[in-house]
Every structure is written in C-alpha cells, then in structure tokens.
C-alpha cells in the first residue's frame, strides 16, 4: 500500500462476509477440545491471567469454576458452581464458553449479528442465517504492533452508511469486545502481547495489519499451515522494507502463484500485489 490505511480491516471484512456464506464456518467442531485445552492450561497454573471460569449462554451472569476433578483422559470436564454443586459436562457443550471469550453460539436476538449491513456491503453474498448466531475462529486479524486500541481506531474511522444507521468497520468485524454482539466471527491476535483473544482452534486465514504483524505471522510455528495476507504500506524505513522483501521473494519453499494472481481484479494505482504458494 502507498500509505497507512484500514485496508487490513477491509480485507478481513471481505473474508468474514465470505465465511458467513459457509455453513461449516463455525467453532462447533473444536469447541469442546478448546474447553479442555483451556482447563488444562488453568489447572497447570503456569499461565498468568487464566481464571479458569466458564459461563453458560443461558445464564451469562453466572460463572462456573473448572475443577481439578476434570478427567482429561476420559474427556470429562468438571465444573464447580458457587453453591457447591459439581457439574460434569461432556461434548459438545456448546452452551458453555470461556469467561472473557465469545460463546460458540448465541440464541437471544440481542446478541446476534445483524445481516443487513453485510448484505448491503456485498449484495451478492450468500449469507447462511445460522452463522449470524455462531462464532468462528478460522479468520484472524493480526493487529498493529502499536496495540489493540490502534488497530481498532484505524478501523473505526471507516464508516458504512445504512438507511437507518452508521456502522463502523470495527463494529462490523465483530472482534470480541469491539461490538455489542455476543458473536465474534473474527479472532484478534495482539502483536504487542503476542496473545490470541481466544483459546480456540488455529485460524485458517490470518490478515496481518503491517510489516511486524506479517513477519510475526509467517514465522509463527503454529500457523505454518495457515494462509496469510499481509497488508503493508511502503512509507517506512529501508531496513523494514527489505525485511519484507526478503520474505516475499520466491525461494526453495515458496513459489509464485500466477493462477491466483490472474484472478485478482485490476488494482488501483499505488497498490502492488504478490502471491506466493508453498511448493508442492
């Protein structure tokens, strides 16, 4: 990109709307495994800031503590209520979610995503209505190195006008905590703290906002199988430009993807695009 912009957010929004049309794009399959993974992290006690609390979508104001009686071999998650009652829950447990993270599904109207703004942005989008009540972690925005607030701010400056109201790009991205919706279909990777906003399965697509997030994303071991889009502006120092150049040049592992490049619609002046794919 020739200048700093909210382009990474816009690319993410496009991918998100595309995912809304995929009936399989939800967090259901890996949800219970994610809860068990979270329970293990909590019970090991090695990671600060992990409260070990879950919530229930039908009683969102009550928390349930993960118990040390949890049996990982048998895949039985044991919870302790405040009144001392012990619950053993099993798959798929879609009504339980980690405190501070989005629930996998939501049934009350107030917390659902609205279809209207997405359909207005991409009228041809084939949105699956159930997805508006289901979270998804397959799409991730790797935010700016300056932090989450900086990432949100640049997105909030982009506004979409509907008949009845104005939507900020930050709100439409449905990143957890950026909108009033309970549902989040874009996970957020904080490049400053190096933390993902949820204990979930790996993303299948990461959109990196800037050079440092891009470099971090392509070197993150867990994301080796993940598709990565880097949106990077050129108004930066030569050393940083060269660091990007060294990564995008074809090498023994990655080659040019001419076919996909040919499918890209004509770009406006000032934008350059390069696509690499893993050598087969």
């Amino acid at each position, binding site marked *: 990109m*020739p200048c700093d912009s909210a382009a990474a957010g816009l690319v993410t929004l496009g991918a998100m709307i595309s995912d809304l049309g995929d009936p399989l794009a939800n967090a259901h399959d890996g949800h219970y495994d994610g809860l068990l993974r979270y329970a293990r992290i909590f019970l090991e006690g090695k990671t600060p800031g992990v409260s070990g609390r879950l919530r229930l979508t039908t009683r969102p104001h009550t928390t349930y503590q993960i118990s040390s009686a949890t049996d990982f071999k048998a895949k039985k998650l044991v919870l302790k209520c405040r009144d001392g009652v012990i619950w053993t829950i099993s798959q798929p447990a879609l009504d339980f979610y980690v405190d501070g993270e989005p629930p996998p599904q939501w049934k009350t109207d107030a917390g659902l995503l609205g279809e209207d703004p997405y359909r207005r942005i991409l009228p041809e989008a084939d949105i699956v209505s159930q997805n508006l009540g289901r979270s998804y972690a397959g799409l991730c925005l790797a935010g700016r190195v300056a932090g989450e607030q900086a990432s949100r701010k640049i997105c909030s400056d982009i506004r979409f006008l509907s008949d009845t109201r104005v939507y900020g790009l930050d709100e439409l991205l449905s990143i957890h905590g950026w909108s009033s919706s309970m549902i989040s279909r874009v996970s957020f990777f904080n490049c400053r703290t190096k933390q993902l906003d949820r204990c979930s399965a790996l993303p299948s697509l990461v959109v990196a906002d800037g050079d440092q997030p891009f470099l971090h994303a392509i070197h993150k071991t867990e994301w080796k199988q993940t598709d990565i889009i880097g949106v*990077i502006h050129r108004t930066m120092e*030569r050393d940083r430009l060269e660091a990007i150049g060294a990564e995008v040049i074809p090498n023994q592992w990655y080659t040019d993807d001419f076919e996909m*490049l040919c499918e*890209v619609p004509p770009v*406006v*002046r000032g*934008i*350059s*695009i390069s696509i690499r794919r893993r050598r087969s």
Partner: protein
Amino acid sequence: MLISATEFFDFLAEHPAYSVERHEISEPHFDSLRRNLRGIVERLSDCDEEEANDLSNRIRILLSEWLTVPVPFNRSILDAVQSLGSPTKVRRKWGDDVAVLYATAINSAQMLPPDNPVRTKLRSIFGFIGSDQTFRIYCHRSARAHFESLLVNGDVLLSNASFLHSLREYREARTFDVLIKVGPLRSRGWGSVPDALISAPRFGTLVQVVWRGCHDEAGFGYDPVAPTSMTPSDSAATERGDVLANMISWKTIPFSDRRTNDPLPEDEFQLFSALNQARSGRAAILVGVDYGQGVLFAPRSEILSFDPAPSAAEPIQFRRPDETLMEGMFVIVPLGTDADLGGPETRKGIYSRTWKASLAQVYGGNPDALVSSLRSGGIDLLNLHASIQRWSSSLDDILPAPGKPKHFEILIQVLGVNWDGTPAAQEESTAGWKLAWKEIRHARGEAIQIGRDEHELINEELVAILGTHLPDIRTESEKSDTYVLSIPSGRGVRGNLRFYKVRSVEEGFLAPETELGFVQELSLIEQWRV
C-alpha cells in the same frame, strides 16, 4: 490533519506519471576540493590507527554535508578544511602524498567562488515555482537554516510547513506539487530520504539539485513486492510477471548548467558506502533530543518513554525506537547513581569527582576561555558549552563524559587536573586521565548490562510509579523539553529520571556496543552513520 487514504488514492489516480527535474551542478574548484579530500579518505582507509579513522570520519562528514546541503561558500569551508590540522603536522603524520592532497584541498577551498552554485540554482528554482503551487523541501533538520538563509530578501517565505525532515513527517504530509531535494536519492547515510518519495509520491514533481558525479542509489524507491520495477531514471515502471506492480511511473528530465570536458567526479557516497561495509558494529537507531544531542539504541530495544498525547491509552510504557517511539514523545533516562533502580552501585566514581569538580570550577570561572582552549586542543564538538555543562552536572555520575578518549585526554590536560587523594596520585603524571577513562568505560559497559538485565526486574514497578506522577509529568512536559523528575523515597524505586523530548528518530547507524544508550553529541554520533 492527516491525509485520508481515499484522498491519497484519488491523488495517485489523477497522476499517471511523475517527473524528476534533475539539476546537475559543477564548479571546478569545488570539484578539486572534493577530489583531494576524497583522496585523503581513500589513502587513510587502509590505516587501522584511531587517529586516521578520526580524520577520515571528519572529512566524510564535511563532504557529506557539502554535497547534500546548500552551505554558503564562505570562510567556514576553508576553516573546516584547515581544522583538519596544520600542513606540517599532516605531512609528518601521514606522509607526502596525503600532504599534497591536503595542500591542494586548502588551495581549492581558497579559490571557491563567493556564492555556492547550488544556492544560486535553488534561488532560481524558488523563483520559478508558481504562486499557485505548493512546495516542500526535504532536508535534515540541521540543514534548514541554510535553506532559510537563501531567501532572506526574497518573496518566497519558508515556514515549518515548507520542510520535511523525517519519514514520519512525510507519512503525515498532505499532497503537494513540488518536492525540493539537494543531493542524490539515497536510502541511507547523510541526506538520505525515504524510498516512499518514489514508491509512494505525494507530489507531482521532484526538483533535485545534485553536484556532478553524485549518483542516486541503485534501486532507490524500493518496493518489496516489486523490487526491480522502479528507479527514478526509468521512463516507466516495468511490470514483472509475478507481481502486480504499483503502476507509479517516473520520468527524469536532466538539466546541466554547463558542458564540461573535465572527467566526471567520482561518487563520494559510493566510496563511503563501500568503506562502511568494512565497518563493524551494531545496527543502531538515533533518537535525537534537545541541544544537539542524541541517544543511539539497538533497533528492538525497549525504551521507557512518555507519550504526552491526551489520547494515549498508556502514556508511560516501554516502546521500541523503530516501531512505537515517535517524535514528540519523551524518553526517560535514569540519572546515573542518583537513581537506585536495582542495579549495583559501582557507578560511583573515584576519579569522576575529581575531574568533574575541576571542570565545574574552571568553566564557572571563564566559560568562553575554557571552550576556546578545548577547541584549540582539538575537541571539535558543535555545542561544547552544553557538553561541558552536562559532563559536570553531577559529580557522582560517571556517565556524562566525553565520548572519545582523545577528547577526554585533551580535557584533562587543559584542566590540569590534580589527582591528589586518588590512586592516580601515586602513579606517573600521565596515568590520571587513563585511569579516569578506564572508570568511564567500565561504567558504560556496566550500565548497558544493568539496562539489559536488572532493570527488567523493576520495569513494571517503575511504570506504575511513574503512572502515579502522571499529572506532574504532563505539567512539566508542557513547560520544558528536558527536565528531571525526582521519585520520592519510600517507594521500591527511588532516584531521579531525566525526560528528553524526542526530536527525531533516524535509522542507519552502525556503532560499537559501548556507545549505545547514552546521551551524546550529535556531531560525535555522526561518525557512526552508514
């Protein structure tokens, strides 16, 4: 107000092509001055002596400035050349060939015309810029005065808005018509400019004034996605098959003041660049602060800093100089032994008290006389008064001290320090400054270690304590660009912290490890620019 991405894309869409008006300047005596000084640098490049490196660095800095800044051709050029030493001393030290080059350089400097042709050209360019055209000048901060002096009696008025000094300022600039640049387009070194001038232009025409023989850096205007697609001399951006290039095209229109049969002068910047490749050191970023001073930091170091912007979510935090530390923020530096920040107390000096007390006394008696003596002795720092005040500010703090051993030796000699009461009193007469210098080097090495290790343990606490002083910090930051904040006792951390407003952040330095993390003279830091 920042330009929106939409505005910028509209601007690019309206400009199918951009132009470089390249004005090439030549002046026989200046060419001769360049050639002879460059010859000295070449001959000294094989020499490992520190004095040779020192002389070579000084010539490189002089040439780099003259080739990228519209300096007036007045007595200062000759003075600068002659300050390299007396011809006799040069002959004795470096031999006949260097002495001949030096004598010719002095002669050429004496023969320079009264007006620098670059300045003449710039005046004519300013005259041609229409009143309806907006222009900006890209130059180093220190070069600004020379541009302003061009137009003292002219119709064109220069203001803050007329100048761009950094990548950040360029990034935040609105679009305009003409950009003026003196010197070649290079991404690193003296007079460097961002590649984005070419790969993301915010103006229609680049007016470039260059001395003959100074070439633009090959591949300048680098786009990491389309790296071979653009140089300003190309008539159009070539399109590679494996990328969608940015479609920004440049056309160069050359202008030459006169035809000459003289051989094309060699490119000093290419020579300096080749010499730099042989240098070792650590990549560093310069954070420029007030009074012609700056601090070199390793690129990914975490620097305690304060952001005075009301919108800053976390005003006090550790920031990286190449990422989140910006101009206008403040860097926070512990003040030597005054700050008990968890490290050992070995920075209390045995010798520093003696020489600093002597310095404070002599300087207090007659500041100008001391400065004059130090300059005669060979200390060529630009702002010597400020340096002396800093060196003598705290008797117990070893760290504020000259950066070079030669300068320190001259200082001690000029002061005539009496080392009674120190171990040096038992040694030979010249041992005092060497022991004192060893103390400085030791303290610097240790401070770096402290900065990397022990301070990490108290970082959180320090940030939290500074957070409670935020109202005071904001008030002080509004009043002054440099100030000291005292942390009262009774907290886990106590001592004094100095706040320096960040004037500039520049990449492109290669410095010894021991020179990182200290406030030093910019003129001293220049030697490590690559």
